[in-house]
C-alpha cells in the first residue's frame, strides 16, 4: 500500500507599496497591486483548482483526499478581494475529505526570532481555522517548511502530533522519504517528509518541454507512485497551490493531469489518497530523522539562505523583531497588525541576492526590480513604523 499525501500551500503576502524615505504616510501596503495579484491567482488557480478537487472528491466518494495550509494573510486578502474563492475553500472543508494545517498566521519567520510571537501567531491561526473551516488542525507545518528538532519540540508542546518537513538527501542518506520518521529525544510527533523528486516533477518540471520525461501523463506518474508500493508507505507531494494554473499554466494541461491522476492511482486497488494526519495515524514511524540545523524547502540549499543569506536580510529581520516589545506595549491593534504583516517571509525573500537556478522562483510575484530596492523600501517602512512608536533610528544607522 502506498498513500499519496497531497499538501498544497496557499499564501500571498501583503506587498508593500513604494515607500520613499520622504514618505510620511501610515499606509504601507499596495492595495491595488495586492488586489490585482490576489484576484488573478484566484481566477487562474484557486477557483479552477478547487473546482477540480471538488469534482474528484465527489467522483471518488471521499477516496480522493487532500491537505491544505492557508496563511492568515491570504485569508484576509481573499475575504477582501476574492470572497468567492474563500467560499470555495469553505465548501471543500465541508466535504470532510480535506484537512487544514496549522502554521503561523503571518507566514512569518517568528520561530527564529521570538518564541513568544511564534506561539501567538500559531494560536491566532488555529482560531482562524476553527472559525472558518470548523476544524481544529492536528498537524503543523512551519513557514516554508522551516524545520529543526526544536520546531518539532515546539509543535509537540502545542499539542500537534504530526509535523511536515523537507526530505533532504543529506539528512536521509540511503533512507527514503516514503517512510514516516520521528524526531530524536522521544519528541512525540510523527514526521512526514516531502518527496521532493516527485513533488518537483509536478511543481517545477511539468510544463518543461526540455525535460526528458515530458509530457508527464497521469498514467506515467501513477506508475512512479506505484513503485513506492513495497518500499514505503507514503508519497508526500507538497507544493504551492499556485503550481496549478500559475506556475504551470492551464495550457500545459496541469488541470487535466490532476483530474486524471486519481483514476490511475486508484486503479490497482493497491494505493490510495490520505490527508497527512490520516497517513500519520495509519503508519508507524520507521526511524529517527535528526535535524539539528534549520532545514527548509527553498532553493537547492534547503536552508535559510533564501531569507537570511545576506547582511541586508539579517539586519532587516533583526531590526523588525527588535521592535516587538515596544509594539506590544502600545496595545494599538493597527500598529500590531502592521508590524506583523511586515513579518511575512516574502519581504525577506525579495532581498535575496543568490542568483542561480532558483532565480526564476524568486521572481514569482516579486514586485521589485532588485533585492536592493526591496531592502530600501522595507527599511523606509520600518523607519516610519519606528517613528509611530516614538523611537528614533537605531544606532546601527550610521550617524
Amino acid at each position, binding site marked *: 500500500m502506498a498513500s499519496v499525501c497531497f499538501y498544497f500551500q496557499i499564501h500571498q503576502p501583503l506587498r508593500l507599496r513604494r515607500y520613499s*524615505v*520622504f514618505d510620511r504616510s501610515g499606509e504601507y501596503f499596495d492595495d491595488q497591486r495586492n488586489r490585482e495579484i490576489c484576484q488573478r491567482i484566484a481566477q487562474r488557480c484557486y477557483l479552477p483548482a478547487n473546482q477540480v478537487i471538488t469534482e474528484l472528491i465527489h467522483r471518488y466518494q471521499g477516496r480522493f483526499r487532500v491537505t491544505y495550509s492557508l496563511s492568515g494573510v491570504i485569508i484576509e486578502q481573499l475575504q477582501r478581494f476574492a470572497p468567492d474563492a474563500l467560499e470555495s475553500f469553505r465548501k471543500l472543508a465541508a466535504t470532510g475529505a480535506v484537512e487544514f494545517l496549522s502554521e503561523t498566521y503571518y507566514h512569518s519567520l517568528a520561530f527564529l526570532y521570538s518564541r513568544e510571537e511564534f506561539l501567538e501567531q500559531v494560536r491566532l491561526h488555529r482560531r482562524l481555522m476553527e472559525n472558518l473551516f470548523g476544524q481544529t488542525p492536528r498537524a503543523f507545518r512551519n513557514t516554508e517548511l522551516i524545520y529543526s528538532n526544536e520546531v518539532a519540540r515546539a509543535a509537540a508542546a502545542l499539542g500537534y502530533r504530526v509535523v511536515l518537513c523537507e526530505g533532504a538527501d543529506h539528512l536521509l542518506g540511503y533512507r527514503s522519504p516514503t517512510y514516516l520518521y520521528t524526531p530524536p529525544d522521544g519528541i512525540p510527533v510523527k514526521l512526514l517528509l516531502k518527496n521532493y523528486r516527485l513533488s518537483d516533477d509536478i511543481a517545477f518540471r511539468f510544463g518543461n518541454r526540455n525535460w526528458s520525461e515530458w509530457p508527464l501523463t497521469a498514467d506515467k506518474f501513477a506508475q512512479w507512485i506505484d513503485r513506492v508500493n513495497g518500499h514505503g508507505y507514503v508519497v508526500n507531494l507538497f507544493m504551492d497551490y499556485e503550481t496549478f494554473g500559475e506556475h504551470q499554466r492551464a495550457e500545459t494541461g496541469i488541470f487535466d493531469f490532476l483530474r486524471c491522476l486519481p483514476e490511475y492511482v486508484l486503479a490497482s486497488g493497491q494505493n490510495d489518497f490520505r490527508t497527512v494526519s490520516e497517513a500519520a495515524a495509519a503508519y508507524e514511524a520507521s526511524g529517527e530523522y535528526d535535524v539539528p540545523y534549520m532545514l527548509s524547502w527553498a532553493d537547492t540549499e534547503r536552508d535559510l539562505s533564501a531569507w537570511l543569506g545576506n547582511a541586508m536580510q539579517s*539586519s532587516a529581520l533583526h531590526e523588525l523583531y527588535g521592535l516587538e516589545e515596544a509594539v506590544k506595549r502600545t496595545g494599538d491593534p493597527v500598529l500590531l497588525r502592521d508590524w506583523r504583516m511586515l513579518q511575512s517571509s516574502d519581504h525577506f525573500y525579495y532581498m535575496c*541576492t543568490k542568483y542561480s537556478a532558483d532565480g526564476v522562483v524568486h521572481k514569482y510575484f516579486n514586485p521589485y526590480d532588485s533585492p536592493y530596492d526591496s531592502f530600501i523600501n522595507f527599511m523606509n517602512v520600518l523607519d516610519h513604523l519606528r517613528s509611530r512608536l516614538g523611537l528614533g533610528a537605531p544606532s546601527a544607522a550610521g550617524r
Partner: protein
Amino acid sequence: MKVLMLGWEFPPFISGGLGTACYGLTRGLDQLGAEIVFLLPRPIEPPHAGHVELVAPGTGRKGGASAYGMPGKFRHVQFRALDAILVPYVSPGEEEEGAEAGVAGGRRRRGVRVVGKEQWAGPGSPYQGDLFYETQRYAALACEIAGEEPFDVIHAHDWMTYLAGIAVADLTGKPLVVHVHSTEFDRSGIHVNQRIYDIERAGMHRAHRVIAVSHLTRSVIIQHYGVDPRKVEVVYNAIDDDGLTESRPLPPIRHDEKIVLFLGRITMQKGPEYFLAAAKRVLEVMDNVRFIMAGSGDMTRRMINLAQEMGIGHKVLFTGFLRGEDVRRVFRMADLYVMPSVSEPFGIAPLEALANDVPVLISKQSGVSEILTHALKVDFWDVDEMANKILAVLRHPPLQATLRSHGSIEVRRLSWLDAARNCLKVYEAAVAAAR
C-alpha cells in the same frame, strides 16, 4: 585574423572611456592571437608618464606615419601614429581658463575654442579645432598605410575615424566594422550636429557590421540612424584586469563624514545638475554628508553657482579633473559613487568604482546598467528616488556591505577577453558579409 584598427585615443593619450575601451579590447584581441595594426593620430603633447612604454619604431617613417611597438604588453600589435590632430574633447581644465583668457587666431564661445576657416562646431559643442578637416586628413593618411599593410578587416572606433574607415574600405574592398562607443544624440541631446550625424550615419550604413556598446546604443543606431538591425551586434565593454589583479583595492580612508562621489566630465550628458538636486534632498534628512564632484567640463562653473544658489555650496566639493593616484584616493574615501547620466552609451566609470570596492548608483539610461545586477539604479530625472537610494546606502551599512561584496565579484567576471572573442565573431560575420 589581421585587423586594421582605426582609433583616436589610446592610453596614455586619453580623455575618456574610449581610450580605455580601445586599450582593453586591443589587449584582449592580442591575447587571442589576432594581429592588429592600430592607427592613432599623433598626440599633440608629449606622453604623460604611464604604464605603457612607447618605443622608437623599427620600421621607417612613411606617409607621415611613425610605427611603435609596446613590448611586454602586446605581442601582435603594431601602433602607428599619424600626423593628424584629433582632440574631440577640450582637454581637462583648459575650458574654464580659456573661456576668460581668449586666444589669438581663434574665437571662443561658451568655453569652446573654434579654430579654422569654418565654424562647424556649434555653440555648446564639446569639440574644438577644425575636426572635420582633421578627420579627412586622417582618412587620407590611413589610405596610404592601408596600402602597405595586409589585413582582413577594418575596425573603426567612433565617428572621427569613420571617414577613414569608409575610404580604406572603398580603396581595398575589405569589410568594415564600425564600433559605436557613443552617438551624437548621447553627446548633444537634441541639439545634434548635422555634419557629425551624417558622418556617423554614413559609417554605419557603409559598414558590414556595426558594434554597439549596449542594447541602449543598439536601439539608437536602429531608430535614429535607420541601420538594419540584423547587422548591429552588442559587445559590452569590460574592465582592465590589470587594475584588479595586480593591485588589490586599498583600505578605505577614514573620515567622519559620509562621502558621495560624482566622477566624470561635468557636461550635460552626465547629468551633474541631477546630482546636485539629489544632494539637496539628502541634506534635508542627513547633515554629515559631503558631495564630491570630480571632473571638469563646460558645465563646471554653472554647477558651482547652482550649488551656491541651492544653499549647499559648503557641502559640495569641486576637485577639478583627477588622474591616476588621485582617482584611487577619492574612491577610497567614497561611500557611494553616483552616475546620474542623462545618456550613457556604456559607462566604464562605475566598473572602476566597483573594482575599487565602492558601491554604485547608476542611471537606468546607461548601457552599463544592462550588465550590472549588484548596483542601485534610478531614472536620472527622478531626483527624489536618487536621494532615497543615496540615503539608504549612507544609513544602512548592511546595504553598502552587500552591494560592495557582490559588486566586486560581479565586476571581476567582466573580461576584455570575452569582449574580444565577441569582436572576433563580428569580424567573421563581416568577412562573410563582404564576400
